[in-house]
């Protein structure tokens, strides 16, 4: 048995001082770790170094920036208790980042000396852009309400590609995972990838809404904000606090297309800037049978029903009076997808992945279709899902997309048990889908020198 010191390792941003909080441990002393298992984290802040007045501080819109730590090898964790005073003192950035800081030891069953890299912790970087500066929570990994969250392994030069996930709960669970955000995803992928998640708060990320958002000009965004502001302040229904909060989240979502976002990443070799996402994960479950179209400004909008319910009365009145409800046929959905895919391909070159739909609930015992109104795809969920899945196959013939076959994978492991309502997965189903996405993404593995031991 050998006790290997766990050193923080390098983390650099040119011209800046990186500060960290003490370690907040996520497990007990003596915990038996898997390789790359996240065992603790610290919060990070950056400030301009002395004599570096020209340096800009990156990620200023991401108020939650944390580094999670993971041993590279399996072993029993022994914490350095002095590394974690707890309470608020484990939240605030007290120390300058020092690569030689030892935060604990790993007892490993080997007589062989581990090389330098083996003693350094793996660093999983996590950053969250708050929906509002008010949405701060002090405890935990990526706490609070984020309009965008992301993670990447801080291995050597960091990630070289970005996977953006825009879906409802079916996509969220795959990347955000079952325990703490992103951890399962990054334990299971050896790729040099950044993963970004944008929630459906409050807008449903369906193709026409995403396309409008992608193409909208600043002047159009201002017109939307002015119209919404006028509706809430001068409408026939008095706006409540729920209305204003909802309106803020809505404008935040509409004004900034995640398909165009670029990213600063802090790595052991320095600060790097990544362009727009190289791959985008969408979900067929987001393609609602109808969308809302603003009567005057013409933009598309849709929300899940429980999101509309959470809005205040003035927002609901605004949606009812200022928007037309436009029904979408399967042909319309296919056209909307094609427009989005072609536009994104032209402008950013991103590869598109689409989760299809589970096409049976597993509990049906239909003996006659006569009680179900025609067209049956409007009535029966399983037929609607089958038709949409077929449409997706046709679309794949004409566009460069990859289908993540939720339907087949659910059938393999038991859809009724692992995907009971067609949207919310079990942890096992999330793992299967995660693996399918990274298998379908023809993106290089990390080089051997970066590979986890």
């Amino acid at each position, binding site marked *: 048995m050998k006790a290997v010191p766990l050193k923080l390792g390098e983390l650099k941003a040119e011209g800046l001082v990186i500060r960290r909080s003490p370690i907040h441990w996520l497990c007990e002393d003596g915990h038996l770790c898997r390789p790359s298992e996240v065992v603790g984290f610290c919060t990070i802040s950056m400030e301009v170094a002395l004599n570096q007045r020209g340096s800009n501080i990156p990620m200023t819109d991401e108020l939650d920036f944390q580094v999670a730590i993971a041993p590279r090898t399996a072993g029993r964790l022994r914490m350095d208790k002095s590394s974690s005073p707890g309470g608020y003192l484990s939240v605030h950035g007290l120390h300058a980042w020092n690569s030689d800081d030892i935060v604990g030891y790993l007892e490993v069953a080997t007589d062989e000396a581990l090389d330098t890299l083996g003693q350094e912790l793996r660093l999983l970087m996590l950053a969250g852009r708050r929906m509002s500066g008010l949405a701060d929570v002090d405890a935990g990994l990526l706490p609070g309400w984020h309009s965008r969250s992301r993670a990447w392994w801080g291995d050597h030069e960091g990630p070289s590609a970005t996977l953006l996930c825009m879906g*409802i*709960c079916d996509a969220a669970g795959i990347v955000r995972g079952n325990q703490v955000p992103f951890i399962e995803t990054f334990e299971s992928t050896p790729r040099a990838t950044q993963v970004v998640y944008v929630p459906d708060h409050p807008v449903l990320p369906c193709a026409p809404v995403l396309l409008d958002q992608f193409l909208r000009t600043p002047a159009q965004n201002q017109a939307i904000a002015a119209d919404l502001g006028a509706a809430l302040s001068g409408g026939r229904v008095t706006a409540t606090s729920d209305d204003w909060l909802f309106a803020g989240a809505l404008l935040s979502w509409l004004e900034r297309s995640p398909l165009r976002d670029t990213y600063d990443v802090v790595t052991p070799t320095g600060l790097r800037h990544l362009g727009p996402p190289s791959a985008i994960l969408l979900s067929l479950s987001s393609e609602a*049978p109808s969308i809302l179209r603003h009567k005057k400004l013409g933009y598309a909008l849709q929300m*899940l*029903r*429980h999101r*509309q*319910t*959470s809005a205040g009365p003035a927002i609901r009145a605004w949606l009812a009076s200022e928007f037309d409800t436009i029904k979408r046929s399967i042909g319309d959905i296919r056209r909307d997808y094609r427009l989005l895919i072609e536009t994104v391909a032209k402008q950013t070159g991103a590869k598109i992945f689409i989760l299809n739909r589970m096409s049976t*609930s597993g*509990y*049906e*015992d*239909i*003996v*006659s279709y*006569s*009680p*179900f109104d025609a067209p049956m795809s*409007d*009535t*029966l*969920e*399983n037929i*609607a899902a089958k038709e949409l899945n077929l449409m997706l196959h046709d679309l794949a013939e004409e566009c460069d997309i990859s289908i993540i076959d939720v339907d087949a994978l659910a059938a393999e492991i038991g859809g*009724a048990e692992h995907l*009971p*309502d*067609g*949207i*919310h997965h079990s942890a096992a189903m999330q793992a299967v889908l995660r693996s399918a996405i990274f298998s379908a993404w023809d993106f290089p593995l990390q080089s051997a020198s970066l590979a986890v031991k």
Partner: protein
Amino acid sequence: MLFDLRLTKINPNMSSGMIECCYVQPGSPIKAGEKLFDLRVDLSAGFSQYCPPISYFRVVARESGFLRKLCVKPGDNVNVGDLLAILGSSIDENDDEVPARSLRVTTAGIAHHSSMWSARDQ
């Protein structure tokens, strides 16, 4: 002969459901293949602040009869095992009889539609 119709477990994780539509009236004849109820099953059991895992189902009669008693109306929450209706094989049966068995029904997942109780406020 009387038949009862109770809320059964459509999904093993459910404990209750909500009546969205009643398609039948007491005293009316029921034909095999006739739709009886649309139901909502919310697996989150009331945690409404979270994305609700809601599914909708249609219950259809697989045998003919007469609706003798309707125990629910749209908007009612019912627990698994609760009585929804009593049906009889003829119109003039004695209501005091104990139901001989449950009515045979078909259940299928359906899309939310504008006639449902939960669509009334939208």
